[in-house]
């Protein structure tokens, strides 16, 4: 086969591949694109186009239910992500560095459970726990943002621990040994070498936990109380009464924030290189 023939064959293959790629992206992103487009629709109908307008964005900005729910979700996400990062880092560090210890198997199983347990079970069991605790020791008094934060943190710990552990296992112990060899106490070595090494994993774990919390409907529904509805809960109850483009506007804002964040991240990464 000549070089020209091969190039031609290669071009045909890559055209077919391009088609597949386009189909794949369409499958993933067409619904989102549809949603973004219709958020600018002037009509109340969610399926018929009636000219461009920012009407729904204005309604969104003045709708206290959605704005409050969004702010609450952000607060819960930030709080639970921070809590999960603190606990998950300790767990991941212990598993990666302490070798064999009593209860290691139990800790590993306990950390794996939230990854495979159905959310409904997790939510239900946490609800029961909170109710029983309230009866037994009077805390937590009622359910609301606090209990949702705790519930989300307890789920996210597993993810953070997995990320941190993988990073530490990857990095090995040689650098920490080098630090101690150069007169750094174990605590110093941790602060000066291990922590900077772990930093990307901590950030990734925190963002993962944040996203999981922002995204969660099931666990939040079980563990929340009156007056503390997270954004997914509000959106879900709104759609049950029939959607309005206001939800599309909200979704577009969220997509814009996420896309902006990703763009910023890749820009920073590009600079770092």
């Amino acid at each position, binding site marked *: 086969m000549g070089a020209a023939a091969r190039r031609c064959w290669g071009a045909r293959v890559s055209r077919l591949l391009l088609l597949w790629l386009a189909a794949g992206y369409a499958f993933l992103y067409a619904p989102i694109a549809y949603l973004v487009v219709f958020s600018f629709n002037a009509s109340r109908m969610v399926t018929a186009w009636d000219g461009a307008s920012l009407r729904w964005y204005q309604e969104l900005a003045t709708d206290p239910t959605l704005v409050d729910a969004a702010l609450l979700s952000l607060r819960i996400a930030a709080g639970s992500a921070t809590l999960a990062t603190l606990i998950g880092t300790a767990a991941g560090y212990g598993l990666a560095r302490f070798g064999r210890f009593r209860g290691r198997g139990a800790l590993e199983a306990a950390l794996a459970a939230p990854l495979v347990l159905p959310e409904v079970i997790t939510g239900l069991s946490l609800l029961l726990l909170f109710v029983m605790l309230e009866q037994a020791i009077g805390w937590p008094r009622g359910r609301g943002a606090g209990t949702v934060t705790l519930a989300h943190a307890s789920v996210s710990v597993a993810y953070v621990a997995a990320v941190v552990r993988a990073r530490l296992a990857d990095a090995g112990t*040689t650098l920490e040994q*080098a630090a101690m*060899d*150069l007169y750094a106490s174990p605590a110093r*070595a941790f602060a*000066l070498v291990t922590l900077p090494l772990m930093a990307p994993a901590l950030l990734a774990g925190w963002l993962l936990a944040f996203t999981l919390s922002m995204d969660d409907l099931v666990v939040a529904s079980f563990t929340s109380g009156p007056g503390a509805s997270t954004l997914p809960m509000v959106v879900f109850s709104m759609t049950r009464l029939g959607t309005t483009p206001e939800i599309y506007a909200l979704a577009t804002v969220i997509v814009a924030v996420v896309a902006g964040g990703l763009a910023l991240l890749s820009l920073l990464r590009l600079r770092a290189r």
Partner: protein
Amino acid sequence: MTLAITGLGVRYDDMTALADLDLTVAPGELFVLLGGSGSGKTTLLRAIAGFVRPWTGRIVLDGTDLAPLPPHRRPVNTMFQSYALFPHLSVADNVAFGLRRQGLRGAALAARVGEMLALVRLEAMAGRRPHELSGGQQQRVALARSLAPGPRLLLLDEPLSALDRSLRADTRTELMRLQRRLGTSFILVTHDQDEALGMADRIGVMRNGRLAQVGAPDEVYERPADRFVAEFLGAANILVGELAPDGTFRLPDGTLLRTGTTGQAGPRLLALRPERLRLEDGPNRLPGIVVAQEYAGESVTTQVRRPDGSLLRSVQALDRGFGAARLAPGAPVTLGWPPEACIVLPAT
């Protein structure tokens, strides 16, 4: 600084990594630990650095027992095989790491870092990150970092193994130059016998967690303690036979060889270095037939089969070209050597 190790034993679970090991390293000495993988040489280094806890024995540095001290309290630095440079710190900060822990700050710190970088000729790289450097440069940063705090003893774990061949010879010379200049005692671990012979003041050959022999390079090479050392360091032809009280070595076929040594009579091994066997008659002689010749430019190795079927190797320097030394396979030859080339070893 004097390092004195006595009766050191290290166990991993139920495996013995070091057993009853004694070793003394003198001030300013470049001591090379040579051994195969799993011989315990790296374990010994890690025990001195403090990363491995011995279950018995003492490691005494200038009268202080190091055993109860954690790694960061030992006046000993390690240059790691993988260099272990901190990826998030610049070259200068890597070198400054140990100095900062010693409490050095400001101008004094900067001066010492500059001095160390000048020592390894990397002043221009101070602001770079380790991953921006070549392998040879990283090696020099690691050396500067481990030498900067002025350790009394520097441990080097295969410091040249990550370098390519052409860099290795230069770096070896450089390492020896630095060691002489600073007068720091070095313990260097390697599995490369050329490195060991070329660099060491003394060599310790390790096997199965023990020191098989300790001595100057020529001493270990020319008077190996046993068959393992003879074959591990360089090549050796081994003959089995009996030693008579007058130093005559008798082979099973009745051939008598003069060894120039005396000792208790009994079964022994005779080790002969290939480069000591000439392809000409000598005070000791063994006849044979050429099997093959292996040309190596500066020298040629000739394999000779003895009448009993065993093979002997002879290496000849080609100071007059290959033409004079070329032999056809099947040609009869006589291998000759002087009595002092005989190395008599215990029979086991």
